[in-house]
């Protein structure tokens, strides 16, 4: 039974620090940086929760996990019960506990945080998920409802696709997940590095999906091997969910960007994470990184590139960002980890040109010094160049981590699909249905590059929308309707 604690006593328990690998040690390996709380720490952390009557944290959670309820169970040491509560609303807790920006979500509005540090909700979420795996044995799987006979195609296996497929399978539909690459997980496998999210965790989640009866089709590019329309007409699906993400890398449009040694963040991370290029020549895909590496941008993607470059042995790893640390869009935790790992941050610095040698190999970057001017439409102070302040930095590799747009393969090949002016798919937010009846979409392809939890949440909302559409509008599965 949990200890009886007063509110005051609860508030006095310090936020439990996350055990982590030593910075100088971890920059030499790809092992996970944050090691996870011990059971004792997890219980102590759970005891900090005030069990608010009107919990603001639940509203702060994009998928509305019943946070106080699961934390109460944790404080009692009932990890199994705690996990069941989390899993009701979040099928991927081991992943979200690691990569969600809790400081902008549940933890931002935690009442304890008004005076002290907020309850470490994310760490607790991760703890229960890891605890289950550590117990060994079978992972508790939700029960599948009776077969409905409907067939649903889920296109893209990132968090939106994974969540939607799992939910549809539980609802009794027959689900096929189509993935263009040879592995499932989307950004979780090709983008986010091993040291933040071990790939074993993603593999386990994918394995669970298969246990739920979801069929996986790898190496299947929708829009090429079959169009969305053909998924209905030739493959007999009753509904299609598009979750193809924001995988189109942006470049800056400055001179020299096509030189050898300039990579998009996606290319660099894919070579390392998906193709395991850090282990070349044991794996066949080279990374080809130089001694001095500059990464442009300061979001999570840029942090991942910087820290990966460091681990690959680059001697100088420099971040170029045109605003200041305060405006950096990366999670604070990622930024701090990068700083601990001796990344050289150059704030108010923007590359204007990449120069190279006669073989078109990068030799360096010309950097423009910036200052913050008047606030722009978004309210953020706009970086403006300081006239005459440019300098050159010798570099071997330049990685562009300045953002991604919607992957156009599916959207371009699908007639009548309404897009907004950035090329994202327009949906009805309640059902996630697109302008084409029976075709749904969610995740980054709808919102633009966002977060894992939002993509997952969209996948769940879409699953409900699809279920409703199938039962109330389609009524008879295509495969049956055709047969007779």
């Amino acid at each position, binding site marked *: 039974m949990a200890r009886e604690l007063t509110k005051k006593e609860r508030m006095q328990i310090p936020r439990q620090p996350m055990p982590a690998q030593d910075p100088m040690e971890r920059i030499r390996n790809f092992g996970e940086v944050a090691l996870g709380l011990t059971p004792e720490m997890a219980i102590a952390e759970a005891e900090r929760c005030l069990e608010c009557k009107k919990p603001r944290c639940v509203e702060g959670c994009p998928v509305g996990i019943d946070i106080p309820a699961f934390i109460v169970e944790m404080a009692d040491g009932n990890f199994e019960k705690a996990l069941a509560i989390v899993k009701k609303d979040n099928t991927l807790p081991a992943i979200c506990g690691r990569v969600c920006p809790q400081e902008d979500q549940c933890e931002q509005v935690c009442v304890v945080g008004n005076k002290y540090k907020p309850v470490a909700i994310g760490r607790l979420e991760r703890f229960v998920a890891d605890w289950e795996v550590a117990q060994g044995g079978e992972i508790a799987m939700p029960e599948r409802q009776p077969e409905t006979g409907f067939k649903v195609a889920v296109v893209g296996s990132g968090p939106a696709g994974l969540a939607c497929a799992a939910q549809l399978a539980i609802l009794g539909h027959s689900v096929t997940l189509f993935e*263009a*690459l*040879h592995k499932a997980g989307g950004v979780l496998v090709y983008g986010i590095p091993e040291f933040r999210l071990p790939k074993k965790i993603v593999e386990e989640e994918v394995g669970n999906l298969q246990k739920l009866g979801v069929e996986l089709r790898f190496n*299947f*590019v929708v829009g090429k091997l079959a169009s969305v329309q053909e998924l209905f007409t030739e493959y007999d699906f009753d509904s299609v969910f598009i979750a193809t993400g924001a995988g*189109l890398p942006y470049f800056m449009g400055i001179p020299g960007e096509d030189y050898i040694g300039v990579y*998009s963040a996606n290319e660099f991370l894919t070579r390392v994470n998906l193709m395991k290029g850090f282990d070349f*020549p044991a*794996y*066949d895909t080279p990374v080809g990184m130089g001694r001095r590496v500059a990464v442009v941008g300061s979001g999570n993607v840029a942090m991942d590139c910087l820290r990966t470059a460091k681990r690959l042995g680059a001697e100088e790893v420099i971040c170029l960002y045109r605003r200041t640390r305060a405006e950096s869009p990366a999670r604070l935790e990622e930024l701090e980890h990068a700083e601990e790992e001796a990344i050289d941050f150059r704030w108010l610095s923007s590359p204007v040109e990449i120069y190279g040698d006669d073989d078109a190999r990068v030799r360096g970057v010309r950097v423009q010094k910036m200052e913050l001017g008047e606030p722009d439409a978004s309210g953020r102070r706009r970086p403006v160049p300081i006239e005459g302040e440019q300098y050159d930095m010798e570099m071997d590799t330049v990685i562009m981590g300045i953002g991604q747009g919607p992957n156009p393969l599916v959207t371009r090949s699908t007639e009548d699909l309404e897009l907004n002016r950035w090329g994202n798919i327009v949906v009805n937010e309640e059902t996630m249905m697109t302008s084409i009846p029976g075709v749904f979409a969610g995740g980054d392809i709808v919102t633009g590059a966002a977060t894992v939890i939002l993509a997952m949440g969209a996948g769940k909302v879409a699953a409900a929308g699809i279920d409703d559409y199938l039962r109330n509008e389609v009524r008879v599965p295509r495969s049956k309707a055709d047969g007779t």
Partner: protein
Amino acid sequence: MATLLKIEEIAPAFKRYLVEMPEIARKHQAGQFVIVLLHDHGERIPLTIADSDADAGTLTLVVQEVGKSTMEMGTLKEGDEIQVVGPLGTPTHIENVGTCVCVGGGAGIAPLLPIAQAMKEAGNEVVSILGGRTKELVILRDEMTAASNEMIYTTDDGSFGAKGFVTNALERFIKERGKPEMVIAIGPAIMMKAVAEMTRPLEIPTVVSLNTIMIDGTGMCGGCRVSVGGDSKFVCVDGPEFDAHTVDFDLMMKRQRTFLVEEEEARRRYLEHHECQATKGGELS
């Protein structure tokens, strides 16, 4: 997974693979390619489709063994399985333009074959100019003959057809017979560049198919980018075919050498570990 049904050596360091892949065979159009992965430690290798048979559910891939992965592919046996993704890239625009000269060099003859077939089918007078270092490296002659109205051959050493390069033959053709309505050139970058330089002043519409470094083949990494008309284009989705007169071949040729050191190391290690027949090797285009 796709099963390799038949493997033949069609020239030194050139193998032809018949791959069971019914879905791709049904969809494949001239000008498209696939990406192949041999095993979990492998790299993703872009390969052009030399032929497809929708009824039999098969694809034909012609692979020149130039690096570690293509050599390793060469050691596979009939019945082995590989992963294949495709068809990727934008299909060739097929139209009856009149006379279409198809210029192919080395491994570039393989992707040229389905294009020549489709152009002929569309009613064009197809004249094929094929070249190679020596006679046996001018591959797929019978197949190309069936897909063309007329054949012209060149070899560097004069062992077959006219001695010289394909560009010499193209020049001669134009001098004798006038400007064709269209030229399609596929082969080593240096050859495609030479063809482009030749047809540019004559204003003959010319199409080339580029083979750059690729990873995903779906527009996700940008590793395949080339400069076309001053814009950065992704070969895997915007191409592989482009207007030859707008491609920056010099930059592309340099970019092809991005991983030269690593590729050489992988090749050397591979050969050391597998003292195989592959030592004959091919030459890098």
